[in-house]
């Protein structure tokens, strides 16, 4: 599974992307977040307020309850501010 981080999520985690093998219990976006928070203080800091995070699976916006599978591209980022 490919994970991508943008803006301050990227900065707090200290990586733009990574390829992980998530455990079986991380079967949804929110399950994935719960697992990521255990991986280090940068992750914990990035995900401490998930109301400020938006999620995309395979480049489409999804809710936290959306399922994730091993071939997916899952992205985490703050609300967008372009334009």
């Amino acid at each position, binding site marked *: 599974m490919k994970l991508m981080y943008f*803006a*301050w999520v*990227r900065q707090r985690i200290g990586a733009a992307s990574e390829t992980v093998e998530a455990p079986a219990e991380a079967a949804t976006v929110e399950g994935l977040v719960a697992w990521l928070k255990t991986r280090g203080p940068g992750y914990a800091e990035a995900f401490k307020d998930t109301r400020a995070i938006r999620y*995309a699976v395979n480049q489409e916006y999804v809710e936290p309850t959306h399922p994730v599978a091993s071939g997916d591209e899952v992205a985490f980022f*703050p*609300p967008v501010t*372009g*334009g």
Partner: protein
Amino acid sequence: MAVRVQEEDFDIGRELAALTAGNHAIGGLGVFVGLVRDIAGGQSVSAMSLEHYPGMTERQLEEIEREAHARWPLDASLIIHRVGDLAPGDNIVLVACASAHRQAALDATGFLIDWLKTRAPFWKREDTPDGARWVDAREADDTAAARWG
């Protein structure tokens, strides 16, 4: 319909001329250009950097553009958004919609920029005297996008 994400500046006159060229059914062209301000949230801004999500950005912009064409009878449309390092006064985004009638052209232009601001994955970082900061999303942008239903 066309969507471009690029570091280079765009030439507004040339882009608009290309958009309407040869189509004499067009009676109105609506345009919005977003520019980098030198002040934001009461603080001076010396530079701005725009990050995006390559791939998803283009998909979202194309989806927003298709939605505009479904809602209004448009002859042509264009979205160009810059990324990378920008300075105050620089162009950020160009949105343009051409239609037989002015109201469709202007409404579709407003719709595109409102939806782009809440759905297209771009993030702004501003350099201020207190250091660099990520721009916070504005509730007003959600309200603006929501009025299109």
